[in-house]
Each structure stands twice: as structure tokens, then as C-alpha cells.
């Protein structure tokens, strides 16, 4: 179904005409509630709103935006408007095309593959954690700031200890988010409990923020009876319906089109919530990234696509992953508003996500956030990143650009945090974690019956038969099977 062009009101049409005569097409146009509007193409020139005010396209000014309103409601559709404009005195320097008017030019010029300067990166705190003067940001209360910082510390310690546990052979696999603590904690802090999270796999901080306990993390990593996933997924593939955190699925980027689907269901239910889907820089090369973003844009779905550009996809550096200016520039290709943010600046991430959430829900549109950061740890416990990158690069980011240190400086300077609290917190978390691991290790693994449940809502006859067969085999050859798992 193509809603190519809707007739806009007279004033808007004339406004566009004026623009067209100046040789570039369209610009931000205020949406007219009663009818549709123009789908304009901003060719990269200066953008003005209907009042002729110059605006910076990168600023998230809510008064001006481009959108084609497609879904008025779930009620029956109204009549299609014909795509030919009814304005009879149209300028003949442009022609109707599916999608909108396009003006002609006799100057042959290719749009450059990259702009002169890279898209700037939004930050609020400088490298030392001091607030930059005159910056745009969302103020946080002491409670939220302290909670954010504690969670970042907890995440850091949790990563260290679980990583060590894997090295000791106690769990089979682990994946840290070292260097990216600000991203997961600060973005989670800016969301509400009703917002649905579709993680990739490096965002346990979001779950931590939402109240997943250290014990619950340990249980999943050990795959024991208490694991919500019933021991069916690898470690770190958390999932918790009650926390609105969808179970992690290993294939990269599959969560992106699903995010569009969830946003679609939120739209149908008219809920005041959004979906947040995370992806790494490598994942943006997957086909699902392209179509997930495209879908969300076409459907006007309230999704925030959060890309953690941490420089590395296992051993593939971003220069080998794509040739664009990162991921933020790709948003425009889909008609998605985007921003680049300093992923190691907790306050910047918090502000950006807050703003994105508001836009996504109120304007029913997807938003793309690219957070620049660095993967300090190895890809996972199956990787040794010193094999493909310089040790001093890793050390630099770990020490000088550490998001946890940076945020600590800020909370300490304001007087909301002290060294004493720091020591107390670290000791307490460490102790809790070690206890949790001990408990998780001792907890029984899921019984044999759980091998066959949840494949379907009720086990069909062939699975019942297979279960019976397996039980018989195990009973007949007990020495060949682990004795500590209940049959």
C-alpha cells in the first residue's frame, strides 16, 4: 500500500513552493493534524521550519520533524488520496514521483560518500568527570545518581568475578561488559519498567538496574534449577518476563525486527511505553539491522535502537565492518532520527535515552542512538583480544577513559559519594557475589523432565515417547549418566 502523497493544506503547499524555487527540496514541515503532509528530502543544506527559522538538524527540537502519518488508528482506513497533487499552479521545475515531489537540477553532482566532518558526539562530562559548562542535559536526582553509580560498580565487580569463575572452570562461558557499564546502566535508568528490552548480549546492566539479583544472575550462569531459563541457554543469555527483559538469543541482530514487532503490539494496545533494542557495531552489518530499522520507520513504531559501537566485533575492527561514519549516519537512510553520544559518559547516555524515549512514545517514531565506547574486555571467555589488538590501546581505555571512574568523579565532586561508601560497596558486592556463586553451584540442575517441557505448550506424543525412552536408558545404564541429576 503506497501512501505516496497526501494533499496538505494551502499554507504548507505555498511554503513548499517557496522552498522549491530556491532550488532545494523540502525541509522540516510541521505536521498538519487533519491531513497528511509532504515527504521532503533534505539534501543536506540548511534546514528551516515553516517560520523560516534556521534549525540545526542534529538538535532534537520537537517542533520540527519530518513524518508521513500513516496509521491514524486501528479503525477502518479512510479513502486513499490520489498521489497527484491537486495544486494546479505547481511549479513546473519539479515532478511528482512516488514518495513526493523531487526538484530537478541540471548540475550533475554526486552526494559525497562522507561528510567533511564526522557527526559530533554528544557528551556532558569531560574526561575527568567534570560537568561541561553550558551543556544540554537531563538533571538526575541524588538518589538516581547514586543508584546508577552503585549499579555500575556492581556490574563491574560481577563481570570480574564471573569471568574468574569461568577461568576456574566453575561456569562454562562468560561475557563481560567491561568498559560499557555506563551504557547499560544509564540507558536502563532513563527508561520505565514498562519499556520492553530486547538485548543483544552485552547489556546485563539493564537487568541489574531493573532488580535482577546477583543470585538470579548466578543461577542462570550455572544453569541450575532456579534459572528462569531452566538451564537451557548458555551463560549470560538472561531472560526475565517480569523485568520485561526478553530472553537473549545468540544469533546476532534477530532482536531488531522483533523489536519492531513488539513496538507494533504496543501501538495496537496504545501503551505509553517503548521498546529498546541493543546491537553492537558488528551486528549492524546483519540484514536484520537494515530491515528492522526500515520496518520500524515505516510502521512508525516506538523503538529505540541503541547501537553500542565499541570498536570491535570479536577481532573485526570497525574499519573492516563498515565504511560509513559509524552507525549514526545510517539512521537518516531509513528516515530515522539519530544521535551519536559518548557511551562512556553516563549522564550523556541518560539524557539522550530520556529524550529518545519521549520522542519515541509521543511521536510514535523510532530513534537510533549510537554510543561510542570501547570493549575493554575480550569478546568473551573464548577470546584473547591481545592477539589482534594492541595491549596499550586496551590499557588506555581501561584507565584513562573508564566510564565508572568518570562518573565516580562527578558524584564525588557533588558530594553524593565518598571513598568510604566506595569501599563498603565493593566489599559488600564482592561478598554477595561469592555467596551467590556458592549457592548457585550447589543448587541442583534441572531434572530430566525439563528436557522435554516448553518445546510446545504441552508435550506431544512423540516427545512423551522420547522422554520415556530416555528415562529407560538412563535407568538401565546409570553409570553412563551423571548421578547428581534427578531423573
Amino acid at each position, binding site marked *: *500500500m503506497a501512501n505516496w502523497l497526501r494533499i496538505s493544506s494551502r499554507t504548507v503547499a505555498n511554503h513548499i513552493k517557496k522552498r522549491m524555487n530556491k532550488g532545494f527540496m523540502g525541509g522540516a514541515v510541521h505536521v498538519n493534524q487533519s491531513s497528511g503532509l509532504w515527504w521532503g528530502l533534505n539534501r543536506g543544506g540548511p534546514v528551516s521550519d515553516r517560520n523560516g527559522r534556521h534549525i540545526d538538524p542534529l538538535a532534537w527540537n520537537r517542533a520540527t520533524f519530518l513524518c508521513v502519518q*500513516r*496509521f491514524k*488508528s*486501528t*479503525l*477502518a*482506513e479512510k479513502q*486513499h488520496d490520489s498521489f497527484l497533487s491537486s495544486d494546479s499552479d505547481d511549479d513546473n521545475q519539479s515532478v511528482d514521483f512516488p514518495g513526493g515531489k523531487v526538484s530537478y537540477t541540471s548540475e550533475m553532482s554526486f552526494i559525497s560518500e562522507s561528510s567533511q566532518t564526522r557527526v559530533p558526539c554528544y557528551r556532558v562530562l569531560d574526561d575527568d568527570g567534570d560537568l561541561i559548562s553550558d551543556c544540554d542535559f537531563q538533571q538526575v536526582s541524588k538518589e538516581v545518581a547514586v543508584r546508577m553509580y552503585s549499579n555500575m560498580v556492581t556490574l563491574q565487580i560481577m563481570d570480574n568475578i564471573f569471568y574468574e569463575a569461568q577461568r576456574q572452570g566453575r561456569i562454562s562461558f562468560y561475557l563481560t561488559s567491561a568498559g560499557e557499564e555506563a551504557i547499560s546502566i544509564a540507558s536502563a535508568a532513563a527508561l520505565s519498567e514498562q519499556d*520492553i528490552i*530486547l538485548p543483544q548480549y552485552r547489556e546485563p546492566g539493564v537487568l541489574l538496574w531493573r532488580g535482577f539479583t546477583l543470585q538470579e544472575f548466578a543461577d542462570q550462569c550455572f544453569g541450575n534449577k532456579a*534459572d*528462569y*531459563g*531452566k538451564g*537451557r*541457554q548458555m551463560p549470560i543469555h538472561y*531472560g*526475565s*518476563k517480569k523485568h520485561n527483559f*526478553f*530472553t537473549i*538469543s*545468540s*544469533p546476532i541482530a*534477530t*532482536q*531488531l*525486527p*522483533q523489536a*519492531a*514487532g*513488539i513496538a*507494533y*503490539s*504496543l*501501538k*495496537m494496545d496504545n501503551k505509553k511505553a517503548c521498546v529498546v533494542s541493543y546491537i553492537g557495531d558488528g551486528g549492524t552489518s546483519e*540484514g*536484520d539491522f*537494515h*530491515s*528492522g530499522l*526500515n*520496518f520500524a520507520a*515505516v510502521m512508525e513504531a516506538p523503538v529505540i535502537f541503541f547501537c553500542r559501537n565499541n570498536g570491535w566485533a570479536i577481532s573485526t575492527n570497525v574499519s573492516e565492518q563498515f565504511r560509513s561514519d559509524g552507525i549514526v549516519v545510517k539512521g537518516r537512510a531509513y528516515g530515522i532520527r539519530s544521535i551519536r553520544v559518548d557511551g562512556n559518559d553516563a549522564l550523556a547516555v541518560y539524557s539522550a535515552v530520556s529524550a529518545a524515549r519521549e520522542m519515541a512514545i509521543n511521536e510514535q517514531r523510532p530513534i537510533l542512538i549510537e554510543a561510542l565506547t570501547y570493549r575493554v574486555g575480550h569478546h568473551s571467555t573464548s577470546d584473547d583480544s591481545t592477539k589482534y589488538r594492541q595491549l596499550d590501546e586496551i590499557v588506555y581505555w581501561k584507565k584513562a577513559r573508564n566510564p565508572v571512574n568518570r562518573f565516580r568523579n562527578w558524584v564525588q565532586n557533588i558530594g553524593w559519594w565518598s571513598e568510604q561508601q566506595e569501599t563498603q560497596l565493593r566489599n559488600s558486592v564482592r561478598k554477595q557475589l561469592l555467596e551467590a556463586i556458592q549457592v548457585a553451584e550447589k543448587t541442583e540442575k534441572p531434572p530430566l523432565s525439563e528436557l522435554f*517441557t*516448553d*518445546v*510446545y*505448550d*504441552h*508435550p*506431544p*506424543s*512423540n516427545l*512423551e*515417547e522420547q522422554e*520415556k*525412552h530416555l528415562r529407560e536408558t538412563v535407568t538401565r545404564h546409570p553409570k553412563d549418566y551423571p548421578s547428581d541429576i534427578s531423573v
Partner: protein
Amino acid sequence: MAAIFQGVGAAAALSSLPSNSFDSKNFLFSPRRSFSVRKAPSFVVVRSDGTMNLDLNPKGRRAQQFIANAVTTKEDSSAASSFSKPGNELLLFEALREGLEEEMERDPRVCVMGEDVGHYGGSYKVTKGLAKKFGDLRVLDTPIAENSFTGMGIGAAMTGLRPVVEGMNMGFLLLAFNQISNNCGMLHYTSGGQFTIPIVIRGPGGVGRQLGAEHSQRLESYFQSIPGIQMVACSTPYNAKGLMKAAIRSENPVILFEHVLLYNLKERIPDEDYICNLEEAEMVRPGEHVTILTYSRMRYHVMQAAKTLVNKGYDPEVIDIRSLKPFDLYTIGNSVKKTHRVLIVEECMRTGGIGASLTAAITENFHDYLDAPIICLSSQDVPTPYAGTLEEWTVVQPAQIVAAVEQLCQ
């Protein structure tokens, strides 16, 4: 391995049947009643009042099962029923639409997504008129990215909607394999049961009339291994509507295979609300000499061959297996035990098709009852050619079926 699964249950079930239940006459008039005492399927069964009967302890639910299956007394797909109201005559694609429309009215969570399903009404007109009735959000036109709109459907299903995803042609769903296998089939399991995916994925497949190799695929053979999904194939307007409705109401992901050449089949179907059990096979023609198992379009080739066979003095029992995953080994088993000869007629390719799996399943479970090796007639392992004659040679024809039966019954 003897028939370990069906032996016990089937024996118990059979003993409680009225003694003449397998009389072919009774079958013609009341197959439903005989099905209803089988071992209860372990899926949601919908009662005629529309409520879900979720308790499916196979041993204790016989009585419930009676009620549930008495949703409509559908005697036989071709015989006009003297019990039900006159019904209305419609084409298969209209029956699919009717089923879809009724479910959308009944449950506001049901939605449709796919390419051109909105105002265009779908490439085969299955969704015609629905966008106008339910709005263009509930009947959603998607951009061309099968993996993505299937993924979208999965996401929507996990949050409580009941999407019906249409693949314009089943072959295009190969692009959606990642989502169907890794997510659709697995997420219920890997999330520990926290998230369910009540999605229906449907579309036309099979060999059409000179549609070329890419548009003539039999996806059921590729999907059959995916754990966590169910597959059904419709073949008549009656079972198309019934299966569509049952699939939508099921809590599991269901893939409904339609056939490009069957969309214009006409039949008179009942007015009242009914569903077809997702795991049941359909007795098309009871018989004594040989069991012919088939599904989808091949059913019609088999029935055509059956006419010839009857003239030659054979009495074939024709079963439309309908449920491709899991197989209805109960019905099939009973038939094998009666006739001792099995012929499978399918459109899938020889290697790795539904017939291959079915052969293995029957051999494994009912080996002792077979008087002859199972014959499986399938397409050759070649891409379907465009040329009409070549295409005809790649699909099993009635003459081959007759020859195979004659060979089996020697």
C-alpha cells in the same frame, strides 16, 4: 522397536470403542466420534463455546475430549451433512479468509502481516477485505524482508498478540529460516517457558502451473526438523478454515501450508463455528486393501487414482495426513494394522521429504504389521522445471499411484 508409544494407548482406546466403529459405513458418517476417543492430543482443544480446554492429561480427559470434538459433526468432506445446517458454498481461499476473519472478530489480538496483505488483499486474495474491516494496522503491509516481518511477528507474539504472518510464497520463507528456527521454534524453550509464541505462518507452496523452480518449493521438508513448531497442510475448504482457526488459537507456533493450485476448490462448508484438530489426520476414503497416505494437492491425484483402482477391484484406504508435524500415528497406525500395506504419495522430493520421515516413523512403529515394504512416491530430487511437460513429469501422477498400488497388492 515395537510400537511402544501407540501400542498401549491405542489398545486401551480401541477397547472402549463401540465394536462396529471401524466399519467403513460408520466411518463415512461419523469419523469424528471414532477420533474422539483416541489418546487426547497434548495441545489446546477448543470447545464449541470458544473457551480453551487446557487440561490435557491424556488419561483422564476422554469425556472432555468428546465434548471438544463435538464442535461440529463433520461427517465427511465430500458428503453433505444431514445433521448440520445447509452451510454455504465457497472456494478454498475464501474459506481461509472466513476462518481468519472470524478469528479476528473473536479475538482482537489476532493480526495479519505480510507483503500486500492490506488493501491489495494478498496475492491470492486470502486477506481481501480485511484491511478495510479491521484497519491497516491490524492487517499490516510490510516491506519486503521475510526474515524481518517474521521476526516482527515473533516479537509481537511474545508480547501477547496473535499474528498471522503470510509468506507470499512459501519459498520466500527460506529467508525467514533464521527467525523461524532459532527464535520461533526455540524461544519458548530457551526462555524457560516465560515467553510463548502463538504465531501462525502461512502461505502457498507446492508445484503450481509453470511457476519455475523458486516458486514451486515444498518447504515442509525443510522445516520439519525444527523443534518447537507444528506443521499442518490444508487440502479442502472445510479443513482449510478449520485448520486456520485451530492454528490461530494454538499457543504454539504453527506453519500452515496451503497449495497454489487448490485455492479455487469449491465446497459447501457448515455455517456453525468449527475447528479442525491440528494433530489429526483425515480419513478421506476408508478401505481394506492398502493405506494410501497423502496430503495437500496429492490427495486429489490419489482420489483420482482411487477411482481407477476401485474399477479394477481394489479397495484403497485414503488418509490425508494433514498434520505434518507431528504425524497422527494413531490414525495411520490403525489403518496400517488393518490393511498391512502402505503407499505414501507426496509432492516433496525423495530426499529428506515428509514421505521419508513418514516412512521411517511407520517402519519404526508398525513394522510388525507390514506385509510389504512401504512404497513412497515423491518428486525427483530436481529443481522444478518451468516447461509444462517436464513439470508434469516431476509431480506424481495418478497412473503412477495406480501402478504402485498394484505392485503393493501383488
